[in-house]
Each structure stands twice: as C-alpha cells, then as structure tokens.
C-alpha cells in the first residue's frame, strides 16, 4: 500500500476514536432528553464538576478550603493523603446522586410542564451555578487526572503497520492513542449496560414508560420524581466517565465544560432521543471532520473542524430533520 492510502486510513481510524470521545459526552444529553425532554446544557459542566470532585477525593482536598480560610483565617488545605481511585470514584458517584436529588427537589420539581426552551434555560442557569460552585468547592487551578489508565501511542499497531507500506517509503506505521482505545472499550460497555438496564430491569422499563408518555406513566403509578433522580444520576455517572476520559487529556479545568460544544453536532446528527444514534453520530462526525481537515483543511487555512462538524450535521439534517435515529416528528394540525 502506498503511504498516502495508509495516511488516510490512519486519519479515519483516529477520527473514529475522536468520535467515540464525543459520543461519551453526547450520551449524557440523550439520556436526560429521552426521559424528561430537557435539553441539558449543563452536561459539560457536570462532567467538569464530577472530574473535579473525583480529583478532590483522590488528592484529599478539603472542599471549600479557600472560602473557609478567607472567612475564618485558618490554613486548611488537605485532610490527608487522599483516597484510592476506586473508592474516590464510588464517592464521586454518591455526590452526583446527591446532586441529582437536590436538583430535583429544588429546581426540576417546580418546572414540570414548562416549554422546552424554558427548561433549556434553566439548565443554563444550572451551568453557571455549578461552575461557580465547583470553583468555590475545589479551587480553580488546573488539576491532573490520573486514574491509572494507560495513554500514549500504541507501539504494537505502529510496528505492525510499518511494514505495510511499499519498500523505501520511510513509513513510520500507524498511530493510535491507547487511551482512546480504552475510551472506546468503556463506551461499548456503557452502551451495553445502559441498553440492558433499560430493557430488562423494572426501573429501566419505568424509564422508558416515562420517556414515552409522562401522563400515562403517572397514571400507572410510576413516580416521576424518583425517575428523574435516577436519570440525572445516570447522566451524572456518564458525565463522570466523560470527565475522566477528557480530563486525562487536558487536565481538569474550566475548559473541560466546553466539551459540550463538541457533542452538539453529534447529538443533532444522531437524534436527541437515541443512544445508538449518539454513538453512530459521534463516529460520523469524528471521521468526517478529520477527513475534511486532512483533504481540504490545508487548502483553506486549517482549523476547520469546529464548524465543519456542524455543517456535516446540517447536511444530514437536510435529509432527516429528526437526526439519523431520532423519533420521527409527526405533525398534525
């Protein structure tokens, strides 16, 4: 094979991997939208908050240390060496469940039956709130996310593919980030678990019932409030996973919340209501934007990925206005 062809293959492969990373974020959006019709703008900030909490537990930070110090003149910083990763993850999950409960109790409960755009706006308010809250709780510095996942280029793939190119072409072999492979594995497990959960458990069936029809679900005795707490907790868990994966790349800092913007084109392409859609959408966006940057980007000055993802999604929408896997929009007068 010629190196050019191999390069294209490499770009596609890495595009797929990038797509999986987008899907991880998009999944959280889909879960909440499906169950409650809320377009949760705060999903990115939730990922940031979960990651901050995880790192905080891992390193043994005292929450609100800076506020307490400023108010009382103390010198608090850490309470000890920190917790082992697994325990920290479990505790973080606990925090996310608590967060879901508080959110339902004080905000969502009052917002039943509001227009979608009002709910959307509420989550924007939530995003502001959590950003300030996370900063106050854990401090605004860049933190290192280390849960023991391997990262770096795969030497195995590199050595195998190096021989594929024609003799004398000086080809170095294909590149893939091991962390991305892990992310792909995690995403697959996540999707399978979510599917099994929603198909075969009682709670899962209740979730689907609520997603289908709020009122009907209420009449058969499903508690909307419990369901919402469960859904937001699951979304919190997905946010934690996304936070771990993205945080391992960039460190845990405010910008982590901006990954939401990369998930939006994935969402509209896959459809707001479909879990497989989030995965397939992610793959299409990832490969599409990388290939565009590879073939055309160089010619028109580069840095095209941000907008091209949206243009690509827009193109698909022209043919299917509800996204590839979205529920068909039926309109009646």
């Amino acid at each position, binding site marked *: 094979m010629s190196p050019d062809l191999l390069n294209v293959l490499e770009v596609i492969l890495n595009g797929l991997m990038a797509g999986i990373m987008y899907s991880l974020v998009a999944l959280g959006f889909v879960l909440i939208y499906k169950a409650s019709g809320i377009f949760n703008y705060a999903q990115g900030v939730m990922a940031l908050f979960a990651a901050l909490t995880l790192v905080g537990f891992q390193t043994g930070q005292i929450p609100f240390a800076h506020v307490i110090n400023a108010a009382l003149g103390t010198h608090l910083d850490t309470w000890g060496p920190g917790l082992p990763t697994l325990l920290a993850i479990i505790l973080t999950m606990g925090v996310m469940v608590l967060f879901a409960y508080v959110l339902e109790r004080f905000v969502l409960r009052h917002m039943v039956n*509001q227009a979608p755009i009002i709910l959307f*706006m509420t989550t924007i308010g939530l995003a*502001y*709130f959590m950003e300030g809250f996370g900063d106050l709780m854990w401090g605004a510095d860049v933190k290192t996310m280390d849960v023991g996942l391997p990262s770096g280029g795969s030497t195995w793939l590199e050595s195998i593919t190096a021989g594929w190119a024609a003799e004398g072409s000086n080809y170095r072999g294909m590149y893939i980030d091991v962390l991305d492979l892990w992310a792909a594995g995690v995403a697959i497990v996540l999707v399978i678990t979510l599917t099994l959960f929603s198909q075969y458990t009682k709670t899962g069936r209740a979730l689907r019932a609520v997603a289908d029809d709020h009122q009907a679900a209420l009449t058969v005795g499903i508690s909307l409030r419990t369901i919402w707490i469960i859904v937001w907790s699951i979304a919190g868990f997905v946010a934690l996973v996304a936070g771990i994966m993205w945080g391992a790349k960039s460190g845990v800092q405010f910008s982590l919340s901006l990954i939401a913007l990369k998930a939006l084109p994935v969402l509209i392409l896959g459809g707001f209501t479909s879990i497989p859609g989030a995965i397939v959408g992610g793959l299409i966006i990832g490969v599409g934007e990388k290939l565009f940057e590879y073939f055309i980007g160089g010619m028109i000055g580069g840095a095209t990925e941000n907008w091209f993802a949206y243009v690509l999604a827009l193109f698909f*929408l*022209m043919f299917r206005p509800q996204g590839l896997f979205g529920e068909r929009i039926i309109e009646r007068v």
Partner: protein
Amino acid sequence: MFYREAGDFKTSYSSDQQTFPIRLDRHMVWGILAIAFFVVPFFINDYWEKSVLLPFLVWAMAALGLNILTGFCGQVSLGSGGFMAVGAYACYKLMVAFPWMNMFIVVILAGLITAVVGMIFGLPSLRIKGFYLAVATLASQFFLVWLFNKVPWFYNNSASGMIVAPERTFFGIPLTGAESPSWITYLFCLTLVVVFAFIAHNLIRGRIGRSWMAIRDMDIAAEIIGVPPLKAKLSAFAISSFYIGMSGAMMFAIYLGTAEPTEAFGISKSFLVLFMIIIGGLGSILGSFLGAAFLTLMPVLLKNVMVNGFGWPADLAAHIELLLIGALIMFFLIVEPHGLAQLWRVTKEKLRLWPFPH
C-alpha cells in the same frame, strides 16, 4: 386604580390604531423617552456610558432582533454572535472604504448586509425545527467567526487580525474613537434603538408580524390557512439579522472600538442574547429591554455590591458572582417562566385593582 384602561375612548380609527392605544402607556413611554433623551445626557459620565448604558443599548438591540426571530417567529437561533460579527466587519469595511459616510447610514448598511447573510443561513429553517435548528444555527456561528479570522481582506491585513474603528465625526463631534464625548455615543445608540424598537413594535402588529406568529404557533396550520412559510421564515431571519447586525456594528464602532472575532463574537455571545430574551420574555418588545438590562446590569451590580460594598476578596467574589447569576436565573424561571415581561403584566394587573382587590 393607578393603571386604567377603562374610560379611554377612541373616536377615530387612527387613534384606535396608534402605537400605544392606552393613554397611560403612551404617557409612560413618552416620559421615559423624555428622560432618556433630555435628562440622562446631562448627567452621563464615562463609567455610566461604557459600563452600563452602551452595553445595555447594544444588547437591547440584539435582543430585539433575536426576539423577532425566536419570540415572534418561533425559530430558535444560536447564531447571533456570528451575525453580530458580520455587522461589525461590514461596519469596519464601510467605515474604511467610505470615510465621509454618515455613521447612521454606515450602521444601517451594515445591518442590511447582515440581513442578506442571515437569510442565507436561515434557509435550513425551512426543513429543520426546534432544537435541531438551534444547534444547526451554530454552524453559522462557528463558520462566520472562522471566516473573519481566516480571510485577511476582512481585517485589512493588520498584523494581528484585530479591527480598530477609525475616528469618525458627527457634525464635527467625534463619535467613534477615544475622544468621543459620552453623551453623543449614548444619544447615537439611543436614537437607533428607539427608532428601531418603534419599527419592530409596529412590524409585529402588522401583516408580517401576524404571519410570523402564525408560523410560531403552528407552522403547518399556518401554511394551510395561506401563510407562506418560506416568506415568513426568511423575512424573520432577514429582519432579525438586520437588528443583530446593527447591534454588532454599534458594539464594534461605538462601544468597544476594537474587535477580534473569536473573543468578541464567540459562542458565548450567542447564548447571552438567547438568555436575554428568555429571561426578559419571549415575544415581547419590552421583554427584550428587560432581559438585556437584567443580564448586562446584574453582573455589574453584583460585583459592585460584593467587592466595593462588602469588601470581599475579588477571587471569591468572582466565583460567587457566577453562582448567584445561575441561582437567580433558575429562581426567576421557577417564579415566572414567562420572563420579566410577564412580571410586568402581572404588576399592571395588580395596579389596576389596587387598593381594592375585588
């Protein structure tokens, strides 16, 4: 008692169809305008101009524009930042190319250019609806900002890609640049905003406004009774972009004086304008003003209270400010999901009966 609609008789069609048919409304609007035009300019200083009044006017204009599209025509858009950038860059190119041109004309032309661009990016709305459309309009946001960053023609090949507004005068008084007195920039923006708010108010009472609202309420039904969706949606995009473009031009030329696309017209601006109209009230001209006031003045207010008032450390205050803004947004939506404009309507209702509630 205080707010009365009863006893306000009309004896001719023209008086029945005037912009503010209720006498009290009319008097109030005239009163506020009189204060804004004839009192404020004498007391304005740099701080009030640059930190309070100009941002408020600029954002009010943008909110008016987006409210036409989202509030009246039902098309959610997150491309406002990009359209503001179009207005700003059009304004810059016009200012440089035609130094003699009156700034009012420059700003309006910049708005017209934006209207054309807005119409092009409005085309997908014929097929895509709801949140799908909202996210799709982000395509225009990212593409336009990238374009202005990439093509040197837009920023006249300056080394860093910043555009700087050259000094232009208005009857001999500098209107742009650092030397311009506060009152003239304020009056310039105020005039534009008032004139176009008046036009918007009348547009939505007319045929075109009614066709927008028909599309908003149910587009299929509207189509069946003979409202052409193509015309209604594209005209909403065009007029909304016209307003947003003007606000971008004002922001660049009068308020800031310099601009760089990624920072000045980023995605956060698109969201900000959307927040304004939701907080203020969708489908309400008054709401656009209230929303713009809330979101431009609230942070300034919070900062002044916390840092200057309580003397809190600036870093904590900055975080608490975010937290409070978020909490306030949620609080307002819980108390009154239909925005500040609805609060005003409720207040009017109360004033009508007060002090005899039955």
